[in-house]
Structures are given as structure tokens and as C-alpha cells.
């Protein structure tokens, strides 16, 4: 584990911060980053698209009277950093302000047992070949299989004029399998992923099981009929089903949306937004989870934040600036895609806490409805609350039983109504990985829940 000083020398940081405040401002910050990554893929049973890279650079921001002045540069030479500070300060006009002396902190990063970059490429290729073989072995109707492997390491250091100097060393690995099944003119696809803020030890078990699972989804869809249309009860599966909560509630709890009145959850703190059976968290400290880090990208230690407690809205997700505006402590949600981006409030791992219902009973109580096991993705407009989800694996529920697979279903609805309509939360629970986009920045996030039922939601099918 390297202390932040290895990436960002404290004397250099102090000079950069002083330079940033040379024309005034209340706050200056330097964020330094070194990132390295490797990706490879298998397609047509051939290892290809092998890509390896390394980047480093820094972003400097100066805050003055509600305005952020930001500059970023490639490279970590002290001269580059000072140049960035000079550019950030260039548009400011005022008297010199003085930064506080730096106090170095060394938070413990997520532990990594097997550093991925030390694993020979042939083992990564072998892992992909195993995924490929497993997918193709799933049946004669498997027409194609592709799989990908990605590893990334981000070492970050952040120093600010309040005297903070901290850092983090983040490693993530992820594999994915995509399968195409064909029967006559029918073509269907299935996908599955496995990822974590861990090392190569993530693949110690049976990682290729995801290829079998992806193939199973595609094969199941070959038998799928058209999705139903109209308003009906919808049971959402666990794991990546949590992306529904991520979109319809999580984004609306990010404090930047709230403070601009661009969230349907604005002004609702303390109010009832869901039935008493619902409690939800954002937790950036969950060991090894995809959205976990030791600190956020402003140096605030990550934490577990309860956002909904027994149906009441109890918290928003803050970065440093939004927390100051609301006069509350930051929640460790100030994240950025890279040194080339400004931090904004973002989710980490967001999940609905396990409830008491048995998953079988959640489905068994539905006379006619839709079972959305997993999603291809979703989108929300936090200001209006309108959301849409593409269902990648869905089934019809008839007479309390899952009867047949459906293809091409989309769920549309409004956040507040759909959240209030959750009338069952399962006692099963697991997390999945996601990549979340906001304001042109992508960050890794975890989503999770057990089975959850929404009493009424619009299913837009192809029927």
C-alpha cells in the first residue's frame, strides 16, 4: 500500500494549493491520479482486442463565492500541477488566501489478495476460453459467444486547503459473457457479468458459471412470447433488479439534483415516500463490492448512509459542496470518473435492505403480473421522476405461478408512485455490478436487493 505522498508529495501539494489561492477563493484542491488497465476479449473463440494502458494527471479546483474554477493536466510533474493551479486561478480576481498546513491520512484501501497485473496474460486468456467453451456447450442453438475481461487500478491522492491529504488505491476486476442463441429466424441474446473491487481471487470459484447463465437466458428467450402490455403488478428480481431503485430513487437523492429543485424528492426529507416495509442504504464501505472505495474523490471517508428508513425519506447523498450548502456533514459521495472531471454527488453501492417476505410468496400472491428478473439498463429524469427500463429477462405471472418467458418488455413509470407502490420486499438479497452515467461521467456502482413487488406498473410490451 502506497501512502498518498508517493503520488502527491505534501510539499508539492502545498505549493499547488497556495498557487491556486493566489487570487483568492475559499477553497482549493488538487486531485492526482495514476490509472492503469488491461482489457481483452474472446470472439469467434479467438482472443482479441487486447488493450493495455496507463494514464496519469491531476485536476485542480478553486472555489470562490459559489463558482468552481477547474483545470486539469496530463502528467504529475510538479511543474504540470502548478500550471494547472495557475490556469484554475487565472479567471479569479482578489487577494491572496492561505491554505492550512497538510495533515496526511492513510485510509486502508480495499484489500487485494492477488494483484491482477501480476497474473500472466495467458491465465486471463484461459479464463476467457473457459467462458467461451461453457457458453457454447449450453446447447446446439447457441450461435455465438463473446466474453470480456477487464482489470483496472486507480491510485488517487487528494489534498485541499483545509489541510486534508489523503489517498486510495483501487483495484477492480470484471468479466462478462454475451451469448446469441438462434432457432430458425428467431435470434435472442443473454448476458451476465461478475465484478468486484477485489483482485484476481474473485475468479477462484467457478467464474465460467456466468457464461452458462448468459447462455441459459438466451435459450430461454427462444421460447419467449410477446410481453404483456398495460398496468399490472411487477415482481422485480434481486441483485441487478436493484437498478430499478438506483434509477427511480437513488438519482433523485443526489443532493445536486435536490438543491436545484430538479428532483421529485426535494423538500421531502422526513416525509413518507414508501410503505413501512422499505428501508434502503447507500454504502461505499461494503467490503469488496463494485462501488466501494476507502475515500471518495474529495478525500471524505466513505460510509453507510441510510436514505429510507421504514418508508420515511431520511437522507440525501452529498459531496463536500452540497453538504456545506445544506449545513450537514458530507456523506462520502463526491465521486469523479477521473482527474479530468469535477466531483459531483454520486451513488456508491445502493440497495434496498432485505425484508421479511419469502420470494415464492411474493410471486404466489400475484394473479396476473410480470416478473422482471433482470434489466438491460434504465434511465430516469430526476426532475420529473419519469423512468424507463429495458427488461433483459422477464416472465408472465399467471395464477401465482411463473408461466412463460416474455421478450422485449419495457417498464415505464414515475418514481414517487412506483416507490410508494412497493408492497413486498423479499428476505433474499444479493448485489450486482453496474456502470452509472451522469453528467457525462461514468462510475462503477453496486446495486442490490432481494425480490421486490410493485403493486402496479406500466409494462410496455411488443404485443
Amino acid at each position, binding site marked *: 500500500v502506497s501512502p498518498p505522498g508517493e503520488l502527491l508529495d505534501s510539499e508539492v501539494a502545498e505549493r499547488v494549493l497556495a498557487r491556486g489561492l493566489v487570487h483568492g477563493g475559499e477553497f482549493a484542491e488538487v486531485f492526482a491520479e495514476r490509472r492503469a488497465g488491461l482489457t481483452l476479449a474472446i470472439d469467434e473463440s479467438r482472443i482479441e482486442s487486447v488493450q*493495455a494502458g496507463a494514464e496519469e*494527471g491531476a485536476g485542480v479546483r478553486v472555489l470562490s463565492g459559489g463558482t468552481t474554477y477547474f483545470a486539469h493536466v496530463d502528467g504529475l510533474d510538479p511543474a504540470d500541477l502548478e500550471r494547472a493551479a495557475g*490556469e484554475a486561478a487565472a479567471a479569479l480576481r482578489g487577494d491572496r488566501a492561505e491554505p492550512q498546513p497538510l495533515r496526511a491520512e492513510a485510509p486502508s484501501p480495499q484489500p487485494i489478495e492477488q494483484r491482477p497485473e501480476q497474473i500472466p496474460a495467458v491465465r486471463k486468456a484461459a479464463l476467457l476460453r473457459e467462458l467461451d467453451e461453457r457458453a457454447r456447450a449450453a446447447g446446439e442453438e447457441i450461435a455465438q459467444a463473446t466474453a470480456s475481461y477487464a482489470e483496472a487500478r486507480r491510485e488517487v491522492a487528494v489534498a485541499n486547503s483545509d489541510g486534508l491529504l489523503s489517498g486510495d488505491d483501487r483495484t477492480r476486476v470484471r468479466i462478462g459473457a454475451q451469448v446469441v442463441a438462434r432457432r430458425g429466424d428467431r435470434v435472442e441474446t443473454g448476458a451476465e457479468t461478475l465484478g468486484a473491487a477485489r483482485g484476481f481471487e474473485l475468479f477462484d470459484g467457478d467464474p465460467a458459471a456466468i457464461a452458462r447463465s448468459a447462455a441459459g437466458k438466451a435459450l430461454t428467450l427462444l421460447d419467449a412470447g410477446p410481453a404483456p402490455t398495460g398496468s399490472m403488478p411487477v415482481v422485480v428480481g434481486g441483485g441487478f433488479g436493484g437498478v430499478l431503485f438506483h434509477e427511480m430513487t437513488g438519482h433523485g437523492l443526489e443532493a445536486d439534483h435536490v438543491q436545484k429543485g430538479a428532483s421529485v424528492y426535494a423538500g421531502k426529507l422526513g416525509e413518507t415516500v414508501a410503505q413501512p416495509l422499505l428501508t434502503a442504504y447507500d454504502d461505499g464501505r461494503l467490503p469488496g463490492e463494485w462501488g466501494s472505495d476507502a475515500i471518495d474523490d474529495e478525500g471524505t471517508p466513505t460510509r453507510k448512509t441510510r436514505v429510507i428508513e421504514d418508508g420515511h425519506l431520511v437522507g440525501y447523498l452529498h459531496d463536500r459542496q452540497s453538504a456545506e450548502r445544506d449545513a450537514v456533514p458530507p456523506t462520502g459521495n463526491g465521486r469523479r470518473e477521473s482527474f479530468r472531471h469535477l466531483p459531483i454527488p454520486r451513488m456508491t453501492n445502493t440497495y434496498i435492505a432485505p425484508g421479511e417476505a419469502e420470494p415464492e410468496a411474493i410471486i404466489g400472491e400475484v394473479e396476473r403480473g410480470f416478473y422482471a428478473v433482470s434489466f438491460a439498463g434504465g434511465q430516469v429524469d430526476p426532475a420529473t421522476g419519469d423512468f424507463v427500463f429495458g427488461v433483459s429477462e422477464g416472465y408472465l405471472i399467471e395464477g401465482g405461478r411463473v408461466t412463460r418467458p416474455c421478450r422485449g418488455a419495457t417498464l415505464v413509470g414515475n418514481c414517487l408512485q412506483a416507490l410508494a407502490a412497493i408492497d413486498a420486499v423479499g428476505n433474499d438479497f444479493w448485489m450486482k455490478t453496474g456502470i452509472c452515467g451522469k453528467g457525462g461521467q461514468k462510475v462503477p456502482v453496486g446495486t442490490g436487493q432481494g425480490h421486490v413487488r410493485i403493486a402496479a406498473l406500466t409494462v410496455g410490451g411488443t404485443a
Partner: protein
Amino acid sequence: VSLPGIASAAVERALTAGAGDAEAFASEAENREVRVHGGEVESLTAATQRGLGLRVWIGLRVGYGYGTDLSADGLASIAARATEAARAADEDEFAKAPHPDGEPSVVAGLSDPSRAEWSPAALVELTLAVERSALEADARVAAVEQAVYFDSAERVAISSSAATGGEYETTSCYAYLQALADGESGRETGLGFGLARGPADLDPAAIGREGAEHAAEMIGSTKPASRNCPVVLDPTVAASFVGLLGKAAGAGAVQRGRSPLAESLGEQIAAETLVLYDDGLDSAGFAAAPIDAEATPRRRTALIEAGRLQTFLHDSYTARRGGAASTGNAGRAGYRTPPGVSASNLVVAPGTASLAELLHEAADGVYVDDVAGLHSGVNPVTGVFSVGASGRAIRGGEKAEPLREFTIASDLVSMLRAVRTVGSEPRWVPFGGSVSAPPLLIGEMTVSGS
């Protein structure tokens, strides 16, 4: 050291490291961004960014390395990463360095030198004008979530051991805002945007007005009844679907059997009235350039004429594999990713019908202003889609009450075949590619609401 100098030094390093052939792509950009909210500047960004990507061939294996350290040592590291990557790849009989032929195309108007004369203060004023215009356009507009201006001046240099390489420079800018309007049923949002080569060609008042109109017109919106009916696609929505079509027409997806157009060369995939070009030479589109990402000259390619699919889009790899010639469609997202087939600017040839005439012809249907969930609601292999939508009812041949929370569903080819009339007023849209599209009247589509 000049950018072309850096690129050719990287190629030399790769050959020294054991590559049989190498191709370097170096880019350097100066970016500025202004964000305003409530009449105040939220953030002001000034940035430079440089990077280099190196594609190497060792025998029939290809690998890729990239980095931001462009010193001699840095280039050596990139070369080492790229050659190591190639050694981890399997052999591919079609993996060879491109040998582009032909002179770079001459494309005027890629760069607006007056961009540099705009001070940060002037750009702030422009962005504030965007916000102000939205607030003044309609009393129901309560606020603007944010108004954003962004510009970039980018230089690109490509060097190859197998070909001449090339270099060019472009500028681009855009501004957009998200307006918030208040109605009895809650907040509505509306997007307004504009793009140009330089800030002088942006119209801040028009951008603000567009956002305001979109937000205000959604007040009081309801869910439509489910039915099959004529649908008019706004140019922004038409462009999003055309972007998907461009992906489907890429030979990479076709050769690997993952395109809904895989078996459709020469077939009727759209109504006769639909004509679509891939035009890498139209400088109004941001994908225009003298050369593509492999230094093959950009060109104009007819994709759909009289409704028939004329060709697939090729880079050097798919051309060699498919026994065709590159169409100059090697694209890349930046120095971090290797070239791959992608559309340049997709241009739908405008028809003769005004929007009023399209609405009149539709008579009773739905005008789709916006779609959501394109990345999750479309099956790229089959082209089957179901996406969230909002817009207006069409009654008596005119736009009527606002509609939300419905979906439209079809598949790409069926939708294109159902195009009844092509509008006469195109617009450049930057979502999901660079597309110029007019409004389109689709004879019938499935609309799912209540």
C-alpha cells in the same frame, strides 16, 4: 516535439520492441466548459489533454497500448504494453496493418479560428444568455437546472509503418440547457441544444427558447391509450434511430452475424422514399475529417437509396475480411481505444413535406418528441426495440395535448419500411453519433400506454 513527430517516434519504438508493423494515433485537445445556474457561474473549466494509442502487429496478432506520458520513456512503455498485448492475442488471418490508398480528402470548414478569440468572460455571457432566454421565453419556466457551454480544439496525427499517415485539426462547440417548468401535476423538463464549429455560430436565444418550449408544452401531460397509429418522429428521435441503423450497417457486426442487416445487402430495408448517406466530408457534422482513424480518406457513401441497402460500412479489417474496399469508416472514441468500424456523419436526405404537412398527413396519431432507454431497450442483434417515449397527441392533423409515460415498439427494419413521408426540415443531432435527420412520418407503430 510536434504531434506527428511524437506519433512517428512511437511507431519507431514499437518496431524496436519487436512489432512487424505499427500505427500510432496521437491527439491533443484544449477544452473549455462553462456551467451556469440561476444567473451565476457554477463552474469554469480550462483543460488540456494529450494521449497516444499504438496498434501493433506481430505476425497475425494485433495488440493495443495507450498512455498519456509522451516522453521518450513514456513512448517506450506504451510500445512495450502494445507488443505484450499482441503476444497475448490469438492469430487472425485478416489482422494486418492497413495500407490506405488515395490522397486525404479536402474538407473545408473543420475549424473556426475565431473560437480562440472568445474570452472566458464572453463564453460566460453566452451561457448566461442561454439560461436567460429560457426564463424569458415562457412564464411557466421556473428555473434552469443548468446551462452548459463546451468547446474543444483538437489536433490529431496518425503515423504508420505501412502507410503515409496524416494529420488534421478541428474545432467544435455546443451549448445546451435543461429547463424546468411548473405545472399542476409537477415539474417538467425540456432540453434545448445547438452545435457549431465555433461559438459565433451558436444561437443562445434559440437554444434557450427550445428548452423552454419543450418543458412548458409537457405541462398537464397524460398517458395515451394503447393502440397502433401513425407516429411522427421529431428530428432528434429520428436521428437516434438512424444512429442505431448506422451501427447495424457496420461490417464488423455484419460479419460476426450480430446485425439485423446481416442478410440484407441489396434488399429493401426501408420505404422507397428513404435515402441515407454516410458523409464523412460534410463539415457541418462533427465526424467530418480528411482521413478516418486509419488514415484512409473520408468519403461520402450511399447507404440506402430507393429504400435498398447499398453497402456496409468498412474499415481496413472488415474490408480485407469481406473482400471489399474500406469506405473510410474507421472511427475511434479517442486514444484509449483502437479503431473500429463506425458511421461518420449519417445524413437522411430531406424530403419536401413541411412539419405541418406531416402532421396533417398523420391526422390522428402521436408526435414523439423524446425517447428514453435506447441503450437498454434495443436488441442490437435483432433490431427489436421497445423504448420509453413522450410527446404530443396529433388530432385533426395538428399537435394536441402532451403525452408521457408510454412506449413505442417495433424493429428497425419494420419501422424504416413503414416510413410514409420524409420531412423537409433536417437538423444535426449529436446523440448516439453525428446525424442529420428531418422529421419522419411512420405509417403505423405500436404505442403502449394505459
